[in-house]
């Protein structure tokens, strides 16, 4: 009878971005479809709130727990408690540093790979032309920022003609992305020296595209734009020819998670430890208008 009637607690990080909101709404929709009683707790970006939430779920005796961990460390103790209470835990969208037996499975993307895919696309796109890249980092210290930076650097490591000349944080937001890009363009002689911008998420890329336009340049042509997440607005930009590539981070982490839980709770099947979602590359060749329409309703 599937997961119908089961109580599942979901500790979400917060609602800091459109992507996060989409993940939340997809998870809620999935739960509703499966007849799950989903207990949702927003941690307002704080790990301590997530730990409190998990403890709260344990105290309520839920059947399973989903956690989108805000940071990789610090979960051992509370997950041990969950384990002692025989509540399976599934991690969403990032991994953690903890013994693997503390959670059932982790449904996540490979953030380093996302960066690498972006980097490799850029290397391919510029061929052997000299290409100076500016990078818009995510929030300093956040794991996607660290991993996507690392991945991208790996991706361009082989190409001596591609190099990062400037890197600043845009805090994953549109307005900071725009502001930082503005600064980059000024600092690099009006943008003439910049061949591409790599942004750790689409929101900052959308901001950067506006900055490029304001400076009288053509995003997508004068300056290539590559970013990660695949939110609707970046596809809108692709339709307009202003963005060149994005790597998908699917908001549907809950689908595989619920499937794994179903198999485990109803059949005792222990799922794979790491369910890696696909890091699919989208370019203007991939029907951006269709992708835009498909995603628009997901709560981004």
């Amino acid at each position, binding site marked *: 009878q599937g997961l119908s009637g089961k109580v599942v*607690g979901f500790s*979400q990080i*917060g*609602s800091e971005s459109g992507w996060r*909101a989409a993940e*939340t709404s997809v998870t809620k929709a999935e739960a509703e479809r499966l007849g799950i009683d*989903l*207990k*949702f*707790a*927003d941690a*307002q*970006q*704080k*790990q*301590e*709130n997530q*730990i*409190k*939430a998990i*403890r*709260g*779920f344990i*105290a*309520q*005796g839920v059947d399973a727990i989903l956690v989108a961990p805000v*940071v*990789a*460390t*610090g*979960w*051992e*103790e509370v997950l041990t408690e969950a384990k002692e209470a025989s509540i399976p835990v599934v991690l969403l969208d990032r991994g953690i*540093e903890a013994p693997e037996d503390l959670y059932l499975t982790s449904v996540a993307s490979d953030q380093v790979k996302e960066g690498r895919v972006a980097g490799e696309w850029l290397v391919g796109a510029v061929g052997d032309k000299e290409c100076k890249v500016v990078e818009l980092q995510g*929030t*300093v*210290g*956040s*794991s996607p*920022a*660290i991993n996507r930076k690392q991945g991208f650097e790996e991706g361009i490591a082989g190409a001596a003609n591609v190099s990062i000349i400037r890197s600043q944080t845009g805090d994953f937001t549109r307005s900071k992305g725009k502001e930082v890009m503005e600064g980059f363009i000024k600092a690099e002689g009006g943008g003439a020296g910049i061949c591409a911008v790599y942004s750790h998420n689409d929101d900052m890329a959308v901001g950067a595209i506006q900055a490029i336009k304001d400076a009288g340049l053509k995003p997508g042509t004068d300056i290539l734009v590559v970013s990660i997440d695949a939110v609707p607005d970046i596809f809108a930009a692709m339709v307009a020819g202003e963005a060149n590539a994005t790597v998908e981070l699917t908001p549907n982490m809950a689908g595989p998670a619920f499937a794994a839980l179903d198999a485990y709770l109803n059949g005792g099947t222990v799922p794979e430890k790491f369910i890696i979602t696909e890091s699919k590359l989208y370019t203007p060749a991939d029907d951006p208008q269709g992708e835009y329409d498909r995603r628009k309703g997901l709560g981004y």
Partner: protein
Amino acid sequence: MNRSLRPLLATTIIFVLAYALAVSQYPGLLSTRVLGNFLTDNAFLGIAAVGMTFVILAGGIDLSVGAVIGFTTVLIAVLVMWAGLHPLAAFAVALVVAAAFGATMGAAIAYLQVPAFIVTLAGMFLARGAASVISPDSIGIKHDFYTAVSQTYLLLPGGGRITVIGGLMVAVFVLGALLAHRTRFGSAVYALGGNPTSAALMGVPVPRTTILIYTLSSTLAGLAGAVFSLYTKAGYSLSAVGVELDAIAAVVIGGTLLTGGYGFIAGTFIGVLLQGLVQTYIVFDGSLSSWWTKIVIGGLLFMFILLQRLIFSASAPSRKALWKA
């Protein structure tokens, strides 16, 4: 009854009422497990809030505590994992660093006469920045001492646990209450919050007390950082963001006047518990969207303060006229 005790009473009544209401809705909230979690989960907040209470009692404010907590966790993680120090030694180093940091801020406030709000805001940037310079990435701490601490607890009937850090928080509150209410330093703190000019004329060493207050606050924030690192077994530059606001809210809900001079350490304790209750209640409810969570937290904060004011003014002081000629 002493008139200054009234806000404390008001807060206590509100907490009891709120808890009873919450339990009537979710009986699961009434368990030693939940109560034990209140202590453990809010230990770092409570410890930092004790320091904040002193600062606010003296009419100041300390916006740097969250950042100092974050910095301390990173420092401890680095000392333990990279330098191979024993955690206790690392704690000692961290406390000394935090104390020096607080003393510097206090000195700037006392001698440069820059408002505390701004000095500690700069302190917040500095501590947060220093943490991310040391290591932007989170560092897991693996050490026998950490494991041992997390496995030490007092089991309550019903499965609840009084953990080391939960106990530590209670101890800090008790010591803090003694310090505030029963020592000369405590009197000086209240004096500063009441009227700094009078305090100075009455012989309170204002600069020294100011420095000590911020030293105490930062040291306790450092201790809260140590507790946080025990709690999460990690050091992370972005941990405990915004804790200063939670601490201020706890202090104010606890009946301490932000303008200084009035309040109790015990009130802050209840303020912390009340905030923990709100969090737990929201988790038990489990139906609030991200935005409603924020609205409800804000709304409850408003309600608590409003209720407290109402109870407080309902028993408003009648001026005593006992002058016998």
